[in-house]
């Protein structure tokens, strides 16, 4: 993904910088340009790249004033911090507790992987001892209920949905009530894919959210998404209280920078990543180790940091 290549570019840029005998404004700018280029090639939003560049420059220049500090090291640290900040707003998301009923609602753009990820999420918690259940509040997409039903059946997770009812709010409410009665402690509501250009779709999402009062709204995002990601993610955030993000299709070749920007737009942490179509291809996401590992694939070493 983006970060591996990015790691490489950053290392190269930094190496060039340390080859220079005098580190002046120009050397610093060259280095930053190189890093920005890598970020842009990975779909990180244009404006964010510029902001990041400004931030780094400020940090580096300020700290450089302090005597005897290593600019290269400061650069590395600044880049790392900026990336971390993009992926982690610093406040942890809601986490479901065993035995205490929680409702988790999945939202996102069309085809981003919501339905697949719902089951993965349920399955993950089932193995941890939860009693999950799946509600299909997607009454729009052809075959949506069959998809959820087949996934749930394979994973032996109870599900609720309807072939006849066309009102997603009604189904969501019925499903949530039913599973609360059945003492399920993790009730997962899958919704239709939607996009900000269609206001009616966003209104529907708002209504489902209002009626089911989810403890957590998860925004599911495809890692191959480009710069449109930012605006879309922001629009979702403004309509419902997105509290966490899951990035899917990380098994692909996508550089993931669009997703990176969009995460920043939601001001919510990434909690899991999807790495394949199968139910167990799902990983907990932890920003620092993830960043370190990815960056080091591109030989960006942070030994200087610790």
């Amino acid at each position, binding site marked *: 993904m983006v970060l591996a290549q990015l790691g490489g570019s950053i290392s190269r840029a930094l190496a060039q910088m340390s080859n220079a005998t005098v580190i002046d404004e120009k050397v610093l700018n060259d280095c930053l340009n190189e890093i920005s280029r890598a970020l842009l090639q990975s779909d990180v939003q244009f404006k964010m790249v510029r902001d990041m560049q400004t931030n780094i420059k400020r940090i580096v220049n300020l700290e450089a004033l302090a005597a005897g500090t290593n600019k290269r090291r400061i650069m590395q640290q600044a880049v790392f911090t900026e990336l971390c900040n993009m992926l982690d707003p610093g406040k942890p998301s809601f986490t479901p507790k065993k035995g205490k009923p929680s409702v988790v609602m999945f939202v996102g753009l*069309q*085809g981003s992987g919501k339905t697949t990820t719902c089951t993965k999420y349920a399955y993950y918690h089932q193995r941890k001892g939860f009693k999950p259940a799946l509600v299909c509040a997607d009454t729009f997409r052809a075959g949506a209920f069959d998809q959820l039903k087949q996934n749930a059946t394979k994973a032996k997770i109870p599900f609720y949905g309807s072939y006849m009812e066309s009102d997603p709010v009604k189904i969501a409410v019925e499903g949530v009530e039913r599973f609360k009665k059945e003492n399920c402690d993790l009730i997962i509501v899958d919704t239709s894919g939607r*996009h900000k250009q269609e206001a009616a779709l966003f209104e529907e999402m708002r209504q489902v959210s209002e009626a089911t009062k989810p403890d957590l709204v998860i925004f599911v995002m495809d890692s191959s998404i480009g710069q*449109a990601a930012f605006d879309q993610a922001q629009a979702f955030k403004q309509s419902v209280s997105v509290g966490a993000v899951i990035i899917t*299709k990380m098994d692909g070749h996508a550089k993931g920078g669009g997703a990176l920007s969009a995460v920043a737009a939601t001001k919510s942490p990434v909690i899991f990543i999807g790495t394949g179509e199968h139910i167990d291809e799902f990983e907990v996401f932890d920003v620092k180790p993830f960043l370190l590992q990815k960056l080091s694939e591109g030989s960006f070493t942070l030994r200087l940091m610790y």
Partner: protein
Amino acid sequence: VFQSIAGGNTVIGKSDLQPTLKALKDRLMTKKVAEEIAEKLCESVAASLEGKKLGSFTSISSTVQAAMEEAILRILTPGRSIDILRDVYAAKERERPYVIVFVGVNGVGKSTNLAKVAYWLLQHDLSVTLAACDTFRSGAVEQLRTHARRLQIPIFEKGYERDPAVVAKQAIQEATRTKSDVVLVDTAGRMQDNEPLMRALSKLINVNSPDLVVFVGEALVGNDAVDQLTQFNQKLADLSAVPAARLIDGILLSKFDTVDDKVGAALSMVYVSGAPIMFVGCGQSYTDLKKLNVKSIVNTLLK
């Protein structure tokens, strides 16, 4: 400044072009044109202008802008065009169905847009059979069945976990028997670097030699658009068991309604594959299928 406006005999040098091109490249990238393609476009514009005389009363920036517009138009206007309806009639003459296979990565809109294409063909009084060859993803068969029911057209399906190449073969045989004009083959989504799945796709295509292989790519995609298309073509070529492998013939650009002015994926996809954009998907109902409006893409990109 005066010189650059009144020009006349000024010869354009590299350094004159740099600032304008840099700005233009940034603009293209904010519209989501892949970085390497924005770069290449700028290089080619620079090459075409360097050493040329600047016309009277034109500025560098408008000259560059015009050259860029022309370059983009050239890319988006396909050298080879495909007239599906004409080709369908030609196949009809030979008493066999015209076969279209839809391919692409996961969730881009293959099945939905396949249904829209079916609707479009029905509008032209052609008969259509759907072939449910995504035998992997949960609900894929039911999804296609729902479309077949709504459009009141036949569907050929064999459930899940079958070899999709075989299902396609049988579907084409069935359509030949029932004298269906067109067979639309739905396939499972797959990542471009998933070798076993790409091999299976190559098999499906080579075994059935469809008339048209359509790559469905979403307008939402970023720089990955380039990689998706390159890899699909590359893998179809490399993993083919037959010498003359079939590659992607045309592109269906989906979810165009979700990207506002960030329309660059269109340019990136055509640029790397040389395949024309045959349809644009712009919504979730059957009528949301359009032809590419080249002029409006150019305007959006350079606006």
